[in-house]
């Protein structure tokens, strides 16, 4: 009698199990890896109601970021400018351009332009621009080369792990305070030469000094840092960002 199931089929259930296990592991890995903001969020570039080009304004015209995002040094939000700021120039420059119809309308009616948010942090994360700017984190470090973007897209994952990477080792992302808005600073020779802990313009702040003194005295602090390199003291505990 012919054997219906050849001998190798005995191993079939085992192989199946192996495939399922491997497949499951792969699927788990896949979700963990590819469903992270790095893959789902980076590159998000929604169409805006007004085709505002940062490439033109920040890049070619060389406008400083703070001309429009004027609250960045004072508040948590680097607020999108009011229409009045646009109209400050555009009553003179391209006053009749059809592309600016919505801007003119908004200025006349007082109704806001419904910009689409690109960088979306969850509501339970409380990010503050002012303190990052004060510490010398460049705009481009998080937002990328805005001066080269015709339509703004998300450049970094903005995930918690990504935040913490910098909070744990901030020094290499710091610049002198007058270079914060400079788009091409990163990768420049200046940057390579810059060592924030040797920067005399960074006054040794009291909290850091106190921190250092205590560590010298043998206090252990959960946030372990080399006291000689501490320039800023970003929080790494929950309530640093979650309130």
């Amino acid at each position, binding site marked *: 009698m012919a054997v219906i199931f050849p001998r190798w089929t005995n191993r079939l259930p085992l192989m199946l199990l192996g495939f399922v296990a491997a497949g499951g592991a792969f699927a788990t890995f896949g979700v963990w890896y590819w*469903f992270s903001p790095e893959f789902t969020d980076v590159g998000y570039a929604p169409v805006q109601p007004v085709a505002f080009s940062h490439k033109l304004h920040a890049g070619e015209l060389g406008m400083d970021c703070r001309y429009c995002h004027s609250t960045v040094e*004072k508040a948590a939000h680097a607020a999108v400018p*009011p229409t009045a700021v646009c109209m400050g120039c555009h009553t003179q420059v391209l006053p009749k351009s059809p592309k600016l119809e919505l801007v003119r309308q908004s200025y006349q009616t007082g109704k806001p332009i*419904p910009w689409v948010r690109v960088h979306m942090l969850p509501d339970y994360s409380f990010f503050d621009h002012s303190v990052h700017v*004060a510490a010398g984190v460049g705009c481009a470090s998080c937002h990328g080369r805005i001066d080269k973007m015709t339509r703004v897209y998300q450049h970094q994952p903005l995930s918690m792990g990504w935040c913490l990477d910098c909070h744990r080792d901030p020094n290499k992302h710091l610049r002198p305070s007058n270079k914060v808005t400079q788009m091409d600073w990163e990768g420049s020779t200046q940057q390579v030469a810059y060592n924030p802990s040797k920067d005399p313009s960074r006054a040794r702040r009291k909290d850091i000094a106190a921190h250092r003194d*205590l560590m010298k005295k043998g206090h252990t602090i959960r946030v372990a840092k080399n006291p000689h390199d501490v320039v800023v003291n970003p929080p790494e505990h929950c309530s640093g960002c979650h*309130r």
Partner: protein
Amino acid sequence: MKKDLQDPKYAAVSESAEVSVSEPQDAQTEPQAFWRSIEDKEGNPTFPASWDYEYTPDAQEIAEYTNVSRRQFLGLMGASAALAGVVSTGCLRKPVERILPYAKRPEELIPGKPLFFATATHIGNAVLGLLVESQDGRPTKVEGNPEHPMSYGATDVWAQSSVLDLYDPDRGQFPTHAQKQATWDAVFQALKGQLETLGKKGGEGLAILSEAIPSPTFHDLLATLKARLPKSRYFCYDTADTPQTSEGLAMAGAAETQVSYALNKADVILSLEYDFLGHEGDSVRQARLFAARRKIDKQMCRLYAVEGTFTTTGAAADHRLRVQSSQVGEFLGALVAHLAEQKHIAVEAGLLANLSKRAEAAKKTHGGDFAKWIPVVAEDLVAHKGRAAVMVGESQSKHVHALGALLNDALGNIGQDKPVQFFSKGNTAAAGSLLDLVASAFKGQVQTLIILGGNPVYNAPADVDFAKLLQRIPFSLHHSFYSDETSALTTWYAPMSHYLEAWGDLRATDGTTAIRQPLIAPLFDTISEIEMLSFVAGEASNKGHDLVRAYWKKTVGDVGFEGKWRAWLHDGVIDGTREKVKGVSVKASKLVDAWGGSPEAVSKGNSFELRFVLDNKVHDGRFANNAWLQELPDPMTKLTWDNAALLSPKTAAALGVSNGTWVEISIQGRKAEMPVFFAPGIAENTIALPLGYGRAWGRVSKGCGFNTYPLRSSLTMYHAKGASVKKLDKENYELASTQEHGRLEEPITGRSRKDAIFRELPLAGYLELKEKNPGFMEDYELMPKNKIKSLWKEPNERGGHQWGMTIDLTSCTGCNVCTVACQAENNIPVVGKARVLKGREMHWIRLDRYYTGPVENPEAALQPVACVHCETAPCENVCPVAATAHSPEGMNDIAYNRCIGTRYCANNCPYKVRRFNYFNFNKENDEQNALLQMQRNPDVTVRFRGVIEKCSYCVQRVSEAKIYAKANGDGYVKDAYAFAKVNADGVEVVNATELKESVVPACAQACPSQAIVFGDINNPQSRVSQHKKEARDYAVLRELNIRPRTTYLAQIRNRNPKIAPKLQGKAAELLEGGVKPAKAGHAAHHGHDKHHDKSKGGQHDKGKSGH
């Protein structure tokens, strides 16, 4: 280790159960001094069994709540899991969010940065200057204005919760005519028609009835109206206004004046049922000035309270005399008689004769403490002549007020730099009373009635049938914030703006006037009381802004007005409006007859005295629709969502009633049915009836409590004699009292834990102990310091800032404002009565109230408890997902998004301060009131279902200060109290809203008595560090070795040795027992000794060396 185990002190803890069996408690030295309720004191085992559970077992509730059956629930779960799969595969992206910038951004506005505006509010004639936070144009949080002398930067529960009223969906939104929606045009047309008709007769038949509105512009408009229509009449009725006070002062020869107390100048205070720390007078100012003299390092004042009900003032008092309300006046009479007889003061012979006669009779009736108190209090008052204050409360008749003024005058307490200060009455319009209005209306003299604010149909005295009266008036207009019981019966209703929406001005007791500045345009189509009155008065402009400016331009002149106006708006007070203290000469002539006759009868046996009290939460009912206030536990009874007939346990026993038993209270043929609730400390045969509940209207207020107004007649506004009480045969009513929530197992070592949790000492004893043995607090501990061992390596976090808090129990007045301020700041939801009954209230701060002393006449102690931020927090170790973790600055953080709701942390928290979102309370609240979202603090996460929350030390404020310091300063957060300024009144004020580099949490900022202090304990100069160095600083539950960052400063009462009550519990042991040498030997013999830590603290080591 072996040595430790053999140590009797150690054994006592590990084998405590065995101990309590083998060795019964020594009743002599181990009485439980502090107790929460009668059941608690008497060890009554009739607690509902569920109270012993950490969480009430109530799995069924989900079905009740969502109307979803178990099967449907499983189905839904499956469906949502499937849907989650679809979403997570990337088919759907996060929803698109819009950014809507201003088209033209207002000056000074930075999106996301709050602005503060100065304004003011009032209840009756009590004005409170405020700074209100505006988040992108939405008023979100109310703070006190440090420049305003009625606030000094603090607030009360009503001001804190008023922001919720602004977003109340039940508020009047459109005018109505005959209960149908109408337009404002129709209102004005109708009103105009009326005024034209009445104008022909000089305004005859026009009556205006308002609440007490201490606004100069309002009264100026009344004068304009009077000039235009001379025959029109103005009436005033306000339950918060007390005509008997001004009548009494008039009787004493100080007509047209009002009293303000500078309590920081008083060494001795005698409160005659004057709840000055609760709802009477300028309570915030009074609490601040009183607390200024309750700091131990300064000369501490002494407060005697004579009262019938148990108020928070009575709880704060050094001595409290419990007499029926009607007898409080007799006490004063007897006191004055005693002082005059002893020639300490001079009193007119006729009056003295009357007083003496009455005093004799009264003393004979009362005997006991009443008689004993008189010479003692008299002596103290005389010893502090010119530095004492005698304060008479609203419940007392004008005779008592007049006699109080006379006594203050005779003792030289009145005047500039004296505790009792008279100021002229500012509001000039002559007002008739409600009874005058009723009389005219029934004579047919009122054709048009305009009611500005108030709710007379609900809160008029029972003998005034206001509803019937309204039927007799052809044209009645109710202009008020709510369309309530009165609006339902008037021909017209017009909605009034909230105080945060309308221009106005408010004059405080001492004349200080503040511009009431709006923060937001009216949310609905409403106008203010000034605007309405201006229309009636025939003013050309009816815009509040113009009216207020016009009045002040008229008053101060045109020159430089614009600059002045801007300065007033900025400061919140009008410069130079504060008046000089008025000299008064008190005359006794009118008092002679008033004090003739025999004393007021004492209610006994089957006759009861009713005491109508304005509620600690809903006041006279005007705040009844405020869910924050309804859910706030009353500071004394801990009742939420209800009122009840409060009576003493003895009276209750005589009636055969228990908590929740229905009774029928009847007086002069008027009846009310309501449940009773035990309130130890109330005078016998007194039934306290909180007003303001039992509303027929309002989504929140309807169904809450019982209306007690029907028992209150115009002759017995505050207390009534001759009531009878009948027990009804009805099923008990369930009252939601939080007094037994979060109980601790005890006793743990045969001793009551509560005695170590709340510590109280008399001043003299404290000073003595401090001198002799600064470490005496150690003696309270259930576990000596050297016996405390840790299970793990202790954290050693001392770098940078280390946050901590102290709560001074001596200063705390139990006003509850911290709880509401916290609720407003931290987006804390309300849960409703049914869930409070299950112990699910969400307040981050609870106010624990303990009684101490005999059940019949106890003293009360109040202790606010929030998360204490333990250094070795037990909650953190048990969290399986590390959602609650420690910050390097010593804060116990929660990452809500990480929490999976196991509730292990709450289970393991010995203080029971963690709250769990059993349901999506915030979403429910939002569904019930869509406007509520406007109140939310954008700096604090709105918590969702299934997560734990608790006090965060206002981490959002800490973060803001740190960010500000890092971005603008030297990176170091400063102590707010280092910037405190002592103002011209000698009061220390902290301008917390201006100090961007400092942190003041919401509770500390609102606290009128500055009992709560927060700061960096790493900074030895900070106020909190200073407090922690005090000898009376202690940690609650220190025996658990969890090292709380919030510590308490023991309550010190400034006892008069002549009437000091017997010391109880640990205080007795420390001060009277002295060292008990026998105990050490005793302990050595008996391995199970419980009195292990009774040998003198600080000497433990020596005493122990024998082991």
